[in-house]
């Protein structure tokens, strides 16, 4: 990615790289101490979703030529803008598939961020709170918190990790760690192009793995002969081996990554498409994964945003995302839930599109692109109890300022914290909870009303659901 406005903050980013690729519980010794929780207020989570899929468009989606379309000096003639609904215009050239699925989707047009830097914006989108360098090492990703919350719900047959990332490490901040939470709530971040840490495919390979694993366990026993009761910590790595084996040994795991040619053609052979394809499979197999964060990078079109000749432009990225999300919505809505025949899988899966901020409306800049713009931008919600076919919030004619916030709090724009409060709520998690035994002793609030630059409403976007 060509970083125009610099976000190469090596000094801040390094704090987050403690997480590396989602593998570090920075405070591994916390694994011994039970996480202490305290309900600070009372939220009423609605619990309408069993699964949640977040599609992050990393690099910043231009709002005024996508889901908050505005005609302006930069509008391209080949956008083929169509009226999808009374209240909704979309560039059909960019979103041919999603144009047909907007009845399932609620658009939020009143997003606001304080960030203008990718790395910080992407951190915000994974941690659900602004980056604070003094605290960053102990802050978990939202997915890790969800993994912690859902631990009690895992069944014996659940082998997949609760929290899976698809190309999370293509985000500028990488895959965030579990912070002060124990390492077992870590994301399993998969490079969709390379496939899973693919398990053995076929009976023979599976048989070999089993043979080897048995030998490993036997050796483990004899090597532990001189243990004398001091092994308790070391068990941690064996625990990882045990859960690794369970994942690898589960035929559902490699199957979740096996895509037919037809499927790949339908979803798209890129990180968005393959990520959504995996998400569909994970939801269908219901093997333990409940929260999936897909990162679709390369949206940062400071230059040549509409230039068909360049390798990465708005058309390409929009088409990729369009196809992927539409296919996911279609496949999930076409399948009945095995838990409740009156519902589809989409009814049980909250699908969210988020991005760091928007792009400057109006005429293009001096290098035929659009720079960052954080005063108004969009997010999308579908499934999991969301009422589709609606638009929350409104911007002015240029798309520069939000004139209607479109939710309960008429004076407040909608923030990433509210997006995550909604996700917690849909998943049945009390978002007003606090965890108190952090290393800094500062309480970790699931949704923190203390925003970066101003107080915010620590509430879900209830209007999405009613």
């Amino acid at each position: 990615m060509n970083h125009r406005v610099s976000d190469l903050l090596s000094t801040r980013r390094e704090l987050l790289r403690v997480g590396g690729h989602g593998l570090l519980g920075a405070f591994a010794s916390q694994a011994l101490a039970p996480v202490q929780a305290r309900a600070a207020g009372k939220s009423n989570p609605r619990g309408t979703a069993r699964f949640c899929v977040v599609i992050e468009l990393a690099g910043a989606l231009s709002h005024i030529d996508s889901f908050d379309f505005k005609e302006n000096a930069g509008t391209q003639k080949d956008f083929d803008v169509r009226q999808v609904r009374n209240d909704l215009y979309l560039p059909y050239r960019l979103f041919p598939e999603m144009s047909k699925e907007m009845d399932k989707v609620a658009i939020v047009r009143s997003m606001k961020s304080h960030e203008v830097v990718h790395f910080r914006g992407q951190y915000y989108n994974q941690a659900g709170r602004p980056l604070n360098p003094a605290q960053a090492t102990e802050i978990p990703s939202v997915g890790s918190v969800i993994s912690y919350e859902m631990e009690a719900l895992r069944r014996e047959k659940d082998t997949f990790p609760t929290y899976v990332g698809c190309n999370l490490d293509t985000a500028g901040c990488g895959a965030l760690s579990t912070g002060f939470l124990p390492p077992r709530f870590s994301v399993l971040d998969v490079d969709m192009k390379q496939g899973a840490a693919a398990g053995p495919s076929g009976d023979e390979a599976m048989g070999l793995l089993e043979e080897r694993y048995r030998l490993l366990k036997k050796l483990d026993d004899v090597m532990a002969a001189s243990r004398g009761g001091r092994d308790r910590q070391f068990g941690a790595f064996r625990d990882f081996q045990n859960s690794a084996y369970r994942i690898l040994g589960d035929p559902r795991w490699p199957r979740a990554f096996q895509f037919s040619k037809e499927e790949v053609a339908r979803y798209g052979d890129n990180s968005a498409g393959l990520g959504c394809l995996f998400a569909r499979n994970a939801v269908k197999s219901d093997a333990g994964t409940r929260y999936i964060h897909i990162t679709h990078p390369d949206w940062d079109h400071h230059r040549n945003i509409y230039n068909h000749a360049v390798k990465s432009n708005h058309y390409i990225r929009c088409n990729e995302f369009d196809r992927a999300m539409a296919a996911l919505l279609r496949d999930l809505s076409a399948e009945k839930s095995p838990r409740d025949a009156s519902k589809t899988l989409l009814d049980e899966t909250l699908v969210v599109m988020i991005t760091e901020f928007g792009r400057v409306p109006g005429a293009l800049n001096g290098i035929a692109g659009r720079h960052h713009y954080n005063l108004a931008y969009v997010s999308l919600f579908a499934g999991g109890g969301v009422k589709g076919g609606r638009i929350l919030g409104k911007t002015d004619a240029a798309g520069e300022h939000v004139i209607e916030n479109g939710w309960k709090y008429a004076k407040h724009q909608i923030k990433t914290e509210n997006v995550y409060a909604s996700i917690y709520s849909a998943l049945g998690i009390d978002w007003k909870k606090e965890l108190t035994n952090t290393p800094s002793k500062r309480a970790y609030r699931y949704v923190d009303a203390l925003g970066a630059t101003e107080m915010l409403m620590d509430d879900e976007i209830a209007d999405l659901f009613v």
Partner: protein
Amino acid sequence: MRFLAILIPLSMTAQTPAHQSAEEFEQAHKPLVQPAKPKSREAASVTAGVAAKLPARGAAERVAHRNFIDKHIFGRMAANRIPHAPLSADEEFARRAWIDATGRIPPPAELAAFVAEKSPDKRAKLIETLLASDAFIDKWTYYFEDLFRAGGRMGPGLNLFHFWTREWLKLDRPYNEVVTDMLTGAGKSSFTVPAALYYQRDFVKAKDDPEAPDAHDLVNQPDTVDEFTVTYSKVFLGLNLACISCHDGAGHLEKVNTFLVTKKREDFFRQAAFFGKTRQIMNWENGYQANTEYTVDDEAPGYERGAESIVRVPRRGKGVAPPAFLLTGEQPKAGEHARDALARTMTSHVQFRRALVNRIWAELMGFGIVEPVDDFDLNRYDAKTTPAGWTVQPSNPVLLDAMAEDFRVNNHSFRHVIRTILNSSAYQLSSHFAGEWKEDYTPYYARKFVRMLSAAELHDSIALATGQPGKFSSGAEKVPMVQQMSEPKKVDGETQRFMRTFGQSNRDDMPKKIAASSLQAMLLMQSKVVTDRVQSSKGGLLPALLAKNSDNRTLVEQIYVHTVSRKPTAPELAVGLEALGGDRARGAENLQWALLNSPEFLFNY
């Protein structure tokens, strides 16, 4: 004009916003309590587990004090009646020393020779041999390239920097001179002046100039200087100036750092001002931008206190800040170049020496005498200046100062630091502790703490254990070990993923250690990095052993010796023999696979 509209919301003031109540302000600034020491605890807890698997040693013998490190370490333990582990056995010590000094498991023949040798000073001799080896240079070049983030941003200059680093390590150049070079490097092309690359790679790109749409080479110099100052302060001084690079310490750091709380953003400006006149300008050639090739010179007007920032809270202030060293207030002498003054004041300060020896101590002993290694609180260095309610920060300040002084007296020799630590009995203690281990013993280093092999060490050790080295490109050469590469990212996808999962630094960010995870366990079981190498059809160790030995017992022993650097115990032998029954080749592959997946391979203990 829209750019300004974007940047204004970035400002974060420290004052109470108008609509925020006093109570909310209180909440927001709730005091932080002194954080626990996670790293040492982590090392201790991991160690307890791994060490428990090692064969029990007898009651702790009295260990010989080999150098001043032992005097301080064992002296304190004796004074506080802290029990300690016994000395490590030969095999335990040898494997550990090989990995720490050379990043690789020991070759079986050399290990056997060491164990068999009878001379009383054989450990010291082994250490000398290891320090004189090429592998020592490989491993520590890799370490410093991680620390200095010698990555892709150096462009083709990276190969030059790689060889320059190898060279100063080989020559054991005084470390203060090396750092002086890195802080004062300048030249028309960063491709030809290796020392200039350290600063060159840290450029912060300016936002695009609408008047000059093609000029995407603009560098935001003040932001670059700020970033670089924060970075080098961590690397060379162990000080984290990130906070005061945006705001005064007062009102923010009362519960975080009692030294930095007294510092102001102005102090940071003045520290940064040593580089205030230094520029990086991307070179052009034949009408094209030579991407990543920069001129580094000192022709900028100086560090403007009010210069626009892209990545920080807006700078407020007027005029050019004169350089002043944060720790002493010292300014450049008359006629002295600012960067020369920085190098001089910084590398002659005791904190420079403490920072380096503390880092190396952390590498070799599990965690630093001061943790985190880049976050010293200088007011808590000794009991006299430590404020009430706080503890002294270093676990053994007298030892750290003794090592810092020893470093100075020995001409800032990096090799001398390694040698001194490795030769100490403190380093040579076993990680197996008989009796009940208490957390309180941890800061005394009463046992050797274990660590997981780093990503590169792990990969290379797998390659060696299976006799299947890689074939990696490093500049124009082909090298068998990842630790020999100038750009370790340039490996195939599978190897890259493996290494990243085990914490390989991307050399854009500062290096970090990572904890275990199930993805690591999955890759160890299934990645081609492991599974291809244990396949006896692919060559390497196993086919050679299978062809040579008709005796299953020897086969098991050889697999053990090559993989976990010791012979199997009787019960382990029994399990190994059982595994070989039936399909011998398959059994041998399975056995080596299992050993590669065992903590005895994965950890340095």
